[in-house]
């Protein structure tokens, strides 16, 4: 079963990190991802570009309009996401708990939809 682990952040949180904190978090995250790659559970891990790089695209009467900024103007915004393929929800939650960010924030866990049919 595939799950997406999402990490949201906000300015206040990022500012509260010291340079050391950042380096340590990066190192711990890398170590965890290496383990997940070795176990064959990691499908992909993606850091998402800062809000300042976000663009919105809307088409009105066939004319595309592009605006700067994220979709929702809120404090929280998506920082990164990881996709894992694991045996159970429990395992996905375990992996989320081991993410260093879980100590300072929330790691959201969502199942991914799939095309497999079942007898109805």
């Amino acid at each position: 079963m595939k799950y997406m682990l999402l990490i949201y952040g906000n300015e206040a949180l990022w500012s509260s990190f010291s340079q050391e904190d950042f380096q340590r978090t990066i190192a711990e995250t890398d170590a965890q991802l290496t383990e997940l790659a070795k176990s064959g559970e990691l499908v992909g891990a993606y850091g998402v570009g800062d809000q300042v790089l976000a663009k919105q695209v809307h088409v009105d009467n066939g004319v595309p309009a592009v605006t700067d900024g994220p979709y929702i103007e809120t404090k929280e915004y998506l920082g990164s996401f990881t996709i894992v393929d694991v045996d159970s929800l429990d395992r996905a939650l375990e992996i989320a708990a081991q993410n260093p960010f879980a100590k300072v924030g929330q790691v959201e866990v969502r199942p991914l939809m799939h095309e497999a049919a079942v007898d109805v």
Partner: protein
Amino acid sequence: MIGDRRVEDRLRELAPQVLGALVRRFGHFDACEDAVQEALLAATTQWPEQGLPTNPRGWLITVASRRLTDQLRSDSARRRREDLDAERDVPFTSTTGDPADDPAPSHDDTLTLLFLCCHPALSAASQLALTLRAVGGLTTAEIATAFLVPEATMGQRISRAKQSIKAAAAPFTLPPEDEREERLRVVLHVLYLMFNEGYTTSSGPDLQRADLTAEAIRLARQVHRLLPGNGEVAGLLALMLLTDAHRPARTRADGSLVPLAEQDRTLWDAALTAEGVALITAALASAPLGPYQVQAAIAAVHNEAAAADDTDWRQILALYDLLERIAPNPMVALSRAVAVAEVHGPHAALEAIAHLDGDERLNAHHRLDAARGHFLEMAGELAAARDAFRRAARRTTSIPEQRYLDSRAARLS
């Protein structure tokens, strides 16, 4: 030039035989498995152009053992080198290249390999991946595509699985008698998972994707051939055949699901049904009953009804009562309730599933809501039914199922 498909089929058939021969000779299951993979890839490249060799099995064994000895030789372990020196003098393929000179394989290693790949030290997903590789002869890329993960991810999973087997020091023999039945149950479960994994919606054949359902049936047939007296093996094969018989009728042109009650039964595969019915009839007569046999018997009753209205629901209910006794679980209770609804009406069915709300084993709660919706609709409680279907639709992760449940809810709006 010979067809790639013919080469592929031949290679998949030979893969476990070649692996078995190598592991018997050299041990080192993990290294042998890598060597066999390389030999298979070499054959995939060369055979379509040059034609099948006179002795394909011998060719593969020769190439694989060369790769293996190269690999192990580059190891600095002195003990391994000594082992190899002792083995190198013993040829086990004919040097004349004439298949007539090659002694017929004295063992069918399929079963031993299956037990090894389904070792309890591995997770179900790993057992499945390793079985597809080592016994099914699929490439890592094919398996990765089947499970919709990157090839690197699947490669790692298989590597890890082989390391676990090495760490468990599992010997290349059948499990001891007192463990065999339990280990066989695991093998059958893996084949069942493989069958279900392959049972995906497709509005057209995807030639790039390995057909896991066909592979599961192929392997189940082999196990049945090797263990003809085993009732559960026959039961599982029968269940697969009887279920697969519905395939032509399961989906509409747009890919949406057709429930069993609405399927056009003229499209059902009569040959598969006949074979499945014959298998389960024989198995029920001659062996102690297990859950796969009972499930196959239920499937047989469904397949023998020319139309949904002709279904012998009383017999199905009796079989579910039996299944609940020998292998109780919430999913069985849900399926049984469908039969209860047909025999005793929807209120009896709703009562039958009422206790499942608190059941923690029911890891797919949307099924409970879906069943409830179905029974409420039968009972004429349309608003409640609609709510139940909507709840179920939100909680499933299967896109085809979600669409189906949404459509059931929409019909009641």
